[in-house]
């Protein structure tokens, strides 16, 4: 009952014209920021923060939160159209989204991304509203051994992301793990693989690797084969630009899967939306009837990760609001903003500041509807970008990529690194190495190493800490099962052949 009265109170706050306006401003800015690679929601919020001091706190919070979840909607656009991940969480969307665009289904992919974002985003808010306090407890019971097991589970996805050759996939993953190891070792303060460059002390930025390997690698590869003046086919007619009923049906499970996995992983302060989207993609492929078609442009391969990275925002709000613990750079800035206004996220926030909490929750429902209404009509418009002739489009992609990377750290060194990773991406395409395992290794490597070493420090070097805790044991077992699947498939194929030959 508390929830319902709270929600009514919240809608009363969120539906005032002023707050509706700010909510719209927030989600609109978020969408734009999400579309632009490099410039992320964290930087945007930090830059707008001083301007919001004149506003009333509730409106300001509603607007800034709008930027946060709005960015997740926009992130998929460039992933699908140009193979340029707009932000780290949209890398997985590239896998099938860009392939769909290649087959002339760019509009459908964008539409599915928007719908998945809406469904999962709303699911995330419902979760935040109903079960925030008990979930916060769950998040706290998660510690280094569990994080290590979760990362193992994520890394096991490599067998699902592999293309034709498992060996090549594993090699690519190892390169990713190695790149993750570059920088300062947190536990000893020693530098690894920096070769005397101060620029490498903090490691390699995710955006540099992802944009280099995906976007630049793709463009370089395409430039060799200049067959048509147009990069990708775009069908004429509005109807063909939207997802078909069959495509939406195929995504039914992906909507649910993305919502649940994204939300649960979002609640954990040490995980993050990139991992959420990888895992939900892996799960989607694992349970699919046609796993072999993943990576060639299946709609559920877009819906699952897009859903996961949107419902993650609802999840991430749980520790932020109920514990005052931020799980990502963006939520850290939101926390800083809250504190500057004298609002204190933490165990007492819902009690002390019900108007704000419920106002925010209600505004997130409204914001998600606004985003859907805002994004769906943009689909045909964005799809037109692909009509541009390649001699215009390719330089534009190069430009966007370089500016995007430069805007993250304002360092030319990163722009050179981008070039290097672009060449790496190109070489990998030529030699038929899949890029996804490299990104997977890179995303998980750092946190996985950290979690393992933290666990061992907690147990004074005793490895059994990893399996003696129930949650971590279950996740490790799952990881082992996933790793065994390709082997079982092989054994099965061999048995079938043996029977056929015998018969």
């Amino acid at each position, binding site marked *: 009952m508390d929830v319902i009265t709270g929600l009514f109170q919240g809608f009363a706050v969120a539906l005032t014209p002023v707050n509706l306006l700010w909510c719209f401003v927030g989600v609109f800015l978020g969408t734009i920021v999400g579309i632009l690679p490099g410039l992320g929601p964290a930087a945007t919020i930090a830059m707008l923060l001083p301007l919001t001091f004149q506003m009333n706190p509730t409106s300001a919070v509603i607007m800034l939160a709008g930027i946060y979840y709005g960015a997740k909607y926009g992130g998929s656009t460039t992933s699908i159209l140009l193979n340029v991940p707009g932000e780290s969480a949209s890398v997985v969307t590239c896998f099938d989204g860009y392939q769909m665009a290649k087959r002339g289904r760019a509009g459908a992919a964008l539409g599915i991304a928007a719908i998945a974002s809406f469904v999962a985003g709303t699911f995330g808010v419902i979760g935040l509203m109903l079960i925030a306090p008990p979930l916060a407890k769950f998040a706290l019971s998660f510690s280094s051994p569990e994080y290590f097991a979760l990362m193992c589970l994520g890394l096991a996805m490599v067998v699902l992301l592999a293309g034709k050759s498992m060996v090549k996939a594993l090699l690519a993953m190892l390169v990713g793990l190695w790149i993750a190891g570059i920088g300062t070792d947190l536990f000893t303060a020693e530098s690894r693989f920096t070769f005397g*460059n101060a620029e490498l002390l903090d490691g390699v930025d995710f955006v540099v690797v992802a944009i280099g390997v995906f976007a630049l690698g793709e463009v370089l590869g395409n430039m060799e084969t200049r067959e048509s003046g147009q990069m990708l086919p775009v069908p004429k007619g509005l109807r063909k630009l939207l997802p078909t009923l069959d495509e939406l049906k195929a995504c039914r499970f992906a909507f649910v899967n993305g919502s649940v996995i994204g939300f649960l992983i979002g609640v954990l302060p040490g995980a993050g939306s990139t991992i959420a989207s990888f895992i939900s993609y892996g799960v989607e492929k694992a349970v699919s009837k046609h796993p072999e078609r993943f990576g060639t442009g299946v709609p559920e391969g877009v819906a699952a990760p897009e859903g996961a990275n949107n419902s993650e925002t609802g999840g991430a709000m749980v520790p932020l609001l109920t514990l005052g613990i931020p799980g990502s750079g963006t939520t850290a800035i939101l926390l800083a903003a809250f*504190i500057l206004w004298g609002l204190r996220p933490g165990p007492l926030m819902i009690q002390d500041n019900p108007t704000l909490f419920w106002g925010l929750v209600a505004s997130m429902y409204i914001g998600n509807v606004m985003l859907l209404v805002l994004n769906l009509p943009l689909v045909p418009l964005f799809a037109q970008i692909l009509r541009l002739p390649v001699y215009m489009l390719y330089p534009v992609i190069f430009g966007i990529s370089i500016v995007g990377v430069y805007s993250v750290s304002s*360092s030319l060194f990163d722009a050179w690194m981008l070039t290097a990773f672009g060449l790496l991406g190109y070489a990998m395409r030529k030699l038929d190495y899949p890029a996804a395992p490299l990104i997977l290794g890179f995303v998980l490597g750092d946190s996985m190493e950290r979690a393992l070493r933290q666990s061992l420090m907690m147990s004074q070097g005793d490895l059994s800490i990893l399996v003696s805790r129930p949650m971590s044991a279950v996740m490790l077992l799952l990881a082992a099962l996933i790793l065994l699947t390709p082997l079982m498939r092989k054994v099965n194929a061999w048995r079938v052949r043996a029977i056929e030959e015998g018969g």
Partner: protein
Amino acid sequence: MKVRPFYLLLALAIPLLGSAPAAAQFKPSKPIEFVVHTGPGGGADVLARAIATAMEKEKLIPVRMQVVNKTGGGGATAMAYLAEKKGDTHTISAFTGLWFTNPLMRAEAKITMKDLTPVVRLVLEPAMIVVKNDAPYKTLKDFIDAAKQNPGSLKQSAGSIGARDWLVRQLLMKQTGANWAYISFPSGGERIAALLGGHVNMMLIEPQEAGEHIRAGNLRVIVQISEERLPPFPNVPTMKEAGFDATVPQVRGIIAPPGIPAEVLAYWEDVFARFVKTATWKKYLEDNLFVDGFQRSAELNKFIDEYSETTRGILREGGVKVVR
């Protein structure tokens, strides 16, 4: 070391500048570039943006301040960037304790504080040691005694090697002979989560960060790392009162590129001397539970020498390779 004579001159010149309005000779003529080493939302970034906004509000300088994020290298990128801007009169930056320790530990971080022009010290950030509310330790001594009984089995969730929480731990362990594990987590949120979840036993935390958990009764403060008791915690002893000598301050202040003219340095010193007296700044300190640590350039240079020397000693004893 090559800049030493310059500083000596400066030290002599400061008393004169303080009284005479010589500072009026220089006036910025275009927006000031305010370099910070963290990304948007990091500690230095938040402080710089607060300063920029307050400067504008109090109309202390005739131009705007533009915050520029030069992230990377644990501050090394920003420091190198400042060094490159030698003689630039329209650039300043916000330094923090990391700027002292990073060049000591990492060969790649080639620029030290003394290669730049320290302008003023602004803030001393206090900290507190907290434990979970159901933990048996009521005082720091309780914790130390428990750590002595089971060497290496108690745990502290913390930041990286060389950070303030590490320095405090090293000092405490050295003075008492106790020993406990130091488990690094990259973000403050993960450190608190590990403590609240009962996976570690204690942590060093900024008062602002811990405030809500203390109010809700989840965490208990056992000691304050501050020269004086902070107003919200009148009943918790300071480190010194508890009988330990481990009051390591977290400093923040303003630094400029090397080789700027003396009148420019004097101008900035003067601006910040007036700035720290404004109501806006006082409220900012109060809101964040920061302690005013204002020092002019000459004193700050002395402080840098002392602090670096102490840190170098602690690092060496802690088995960390000191490179300069």
